[in-house]
């Protein structure tokens, strides 16, 4: 990545809260337009648009209200639930979906701040899953200890996988974007191979499908409300991770040096910091946070584990990290927002609004935040002309 691209990413992450909020509103606004354009009920009114334009607008308005209404019902609170438990289920689902996004988002944001565009979240989650699945299905340990061992195994495996990309960058200058993308493929295929192979992770009863045994009860992340909700302690781990991220990046000397390298590697070098070594460590720590997301996924599904369990969190976390910018709090908020999207999309489908709209909204939000720095960088005057302003 050229330093210019890096600069753009840094600028995107430094966007003000106002800009982020505006972008979110704009994202919803354009999402609404898409909803209307492709909704069957609205399309049906087009034929009579000139005789009865009111019908079209009424239908359009109704669609948007239905769509976003369903999103709220599916993600926050469902007043139509059959009992109190059901009414509050949506918010617990949002929290459950948000946890891995927050964890992985923290990791990727950390990398970005060191100037490392780690888009290998998927590969890092998958390698974490390899480790956690091994521990949870192939080892027998007492409860809690089993879970902790599986969790640590996921974190360590992810961190090592991330460190490889950092090592290659430090040693050979290989670009981390290319390297992490390629390592995603390697990781996914490796995981699938392990899930397919007897004696490795393949389920005893799995037949031909690449699937593992269900994780041992003792390794599972305990649920918070017993059997009432699926919500488990992953959300607590995510909040704790956010605190750790804050402490590391804003208060510790190590995080300070990470940031220094991200802003100005030359100055860091002149200050006696080994920039290459920092790349390796930063990739490892970045991937370690992603590893928490792996554990969250691998230790919460009661059924057997398939390779799709990574659920593209590695990619969604990129948007979380960009939206969340430089602050742990904002990453948590961004994770909650996109977690709500995930939780709410089935409800939207029920009212006939395509949940893919939410993917579009998510992309638009990031695009709107990213646009000002991107446009600025594209229109940027030649450096010499700009510098003159300051002379």
């Amino acid at each position, binding site marked *: 990545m050229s330093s210019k691209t890096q600069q753009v990413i*840094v600028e995107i992450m430094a966007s003000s809260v106002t800009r982020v909020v505006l972008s979110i509103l704009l994202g919803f606004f354009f999402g609404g337009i898409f909803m209307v354009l492709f909704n069957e009920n609205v399309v049906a009114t087009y034929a009579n648009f000139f005789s009865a334009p009111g019908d079209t607008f009424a239908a359009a308005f109704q669609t948007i209200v239905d769509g976003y209404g369903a999103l709220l019902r599916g993600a926050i609170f469902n007043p139509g639930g059959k009992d109190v438990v059901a009414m509050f289920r949506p918010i617990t689902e949002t929290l459950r979906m948000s946890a891995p996004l927050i964890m992985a988002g923290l990791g990727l944001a950390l990398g970005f701040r060191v100037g490392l565009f780690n888009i290998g979240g998927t590969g890092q989650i998958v390698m974490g899953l390899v480790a956690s699945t091994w521990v949870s299905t192939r080892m027998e340990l007492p409860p809690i200890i089993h879970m902790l061992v599986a969790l640590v195994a996921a974190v360590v495996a992810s961190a090592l996988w991330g460190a490889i990309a950092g090592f290659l960058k430090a040693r050979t200058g290989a670009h981390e974007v290319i390297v992490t993308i390629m390592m995603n493929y390697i990781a996914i295929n490796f995981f699938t191979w392990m899930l397919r192979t007897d004696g490795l992770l393949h389920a005893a009863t799995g037949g031909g499908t690449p699937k593992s045994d269900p994780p041992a009860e003792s390794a599972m992340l305990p649920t918070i409300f017993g059997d009432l909700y699926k919500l488990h302690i992953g959300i607590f781990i995510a909040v704790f991770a956010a605190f750790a991220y804050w*402490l590391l990046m804003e*208060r*510790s*000397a*190590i995080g*300070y*040096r990470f*940031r*220094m390298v991200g*802003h*100005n590697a*030359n*100055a*860091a*070098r*002149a*200050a*006696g*910091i*080994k920039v290459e070594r920092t790349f390796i460590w930063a990739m490892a720590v970045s991937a370690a946070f992603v590893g928490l997301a792996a554990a969250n996924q691998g230790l919460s599904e009661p059924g057997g584990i398939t390779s799709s369990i990574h659920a593209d969190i590695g990619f969604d976390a990129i948007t979380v990290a960009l939206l969340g910018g430089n602050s742990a709090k904002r990453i948590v908020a961004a994770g909650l927002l996109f977690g709500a999207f995930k939780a709410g999309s089935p409800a939207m489908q029920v009212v006939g609004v395509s949940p893919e709209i939410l993917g579009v909204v998510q992309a638009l939000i990031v695009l709107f935040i990213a646009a000002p720095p991107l446009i600025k960088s594209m229109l940027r005057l030649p450096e*010499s*002309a700009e510098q*003159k*302003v*300051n*002379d």
Partner: protein
Amino acid sequence: MKLEIKGITKRFGSLVANDSISLTVNAGEIVSLLGENGAGKSTLMNVLYGLYQAEAGEILIDDQPVKFKGPGDAMAAGIGMVHQHFMLIPVFTVAENVALGHEPTKFAGAMDLDKARARVREISDQFGFNVDPDALVRDLPVGVQQRVEIIKALSRNAKTLVLDEPTAVLTPQETDELMAIMRELAKSGTSIIFITHKLREVQAVADRIVVIRLGKVVGEAKPTDTASELASMMVGREVDLTVKRSKKQSGDVVLSLENISVLDDRGQLAVAGLSLEVRAGEVLAIAGVQGNGQTELAEAIVGLRKLERGSGSIKYRGLSIEGESVRGRLERFLSYVPEDRKKDGLVSEFSLEENLLLNQSFEDDRGAPFVKRGLIDSAVLKAETDKAIESFDVRTQSSKTTAGKLSGGNQQKMVLAREMTRPHEVLLVAQPTRGVDVGSIEFIHEQIMLERDEQQTAVLLISTELDEVLSLADRIAVMYRGRVVGVVSADTSRETLGKMMAGIAA
């Protein structure tokens, strides 16, 4: 051609870069635009050249108002600009560079280089430029490249020439030659706007001097005014340009370079078998024109650049330190003020507090005042930063302000504050006053002398400004093409030093 600038106002956001500036240049006149960095000189020239559009005011040529939408319009109207950084293509010949952008063509669009060659020869002969049209630009010395830029402007019939800090890259001799050329051009009727902050040059060549400060014309001065008078006008208060210094005995050799060779980024030998000794309590200045290996030398001393294999060694108090990391050197004895503070000395996005911490974030055996059990002690850091801001006169809103928001002089004072307050025995300071306002220069020079006198520091000063070298140094080593031409005492004449800077041993 008579050029008139009337009431030009240019704003960038809330910053008024040019506040109703008026300026007249008559045919054959050399007008010097004098002002500190950030005074608005370059903005004004960019307005004149059509790069910026002014919010108010107008430009008149021979009493006719003109509007420039871009540099093309300005050039067509007879305004030529020679930028500080040359806009030449190194692998093209002089004639090709001159023809670039308005290539004379023969039938079917084939380029008529003969015409371009003839034009170069014609202009070169007329003003005594002595430039070969077929030479490749990359083979030419910097001073000659600059003449190519001037030829380029003249070949487009420029009647008014803007020279933006033209002497920054020249040796004293080349500077003299440029001034002779400027006089010739003026005699032939070309008007010249000469932008600079070097008072000596202004006094030598200008017919009139217009001083601008904070975007406003503060007055006109005569070339006969003294340097102190000009400086005071520029800064807006009394300035004492002479550095007070006492004779004193220097101490032991602290840093010695023995026959070291260093490669530059392109793998060329930038430092070629250089030897020097710096003693405690002395200022050893390395003079020389930019690009003669000073940058690489500094980086080698800090440890950012490896010595060529088989070449000599760097010793601190007699002990070889090649094996030491940058951090090791910084912690043991070295303070380093890099020549490009924005690139190497500061993190613009960091607050002043974070910039004070820059090379002090490790917990080492000296005890870490700022870092305790891995966490930054923000109270101590703030207190120390406030102290540094106070004692180094850094003009800032607070210690939380980001370094990028400070002026060049204040940024530099912040770097000095950090490096001078860290424990050290050697101070390596490169281009300490580059891009720094006159007021801060005075302060920075005082601080360097205090280092020498009170801290008994061994100061290695690398500077391309001869005035600075002469006023600070105890001994002067002149560097040319990676070698030391000679080490001479501080009372050596400017002429002798100039010759040495061109590679002629004294």
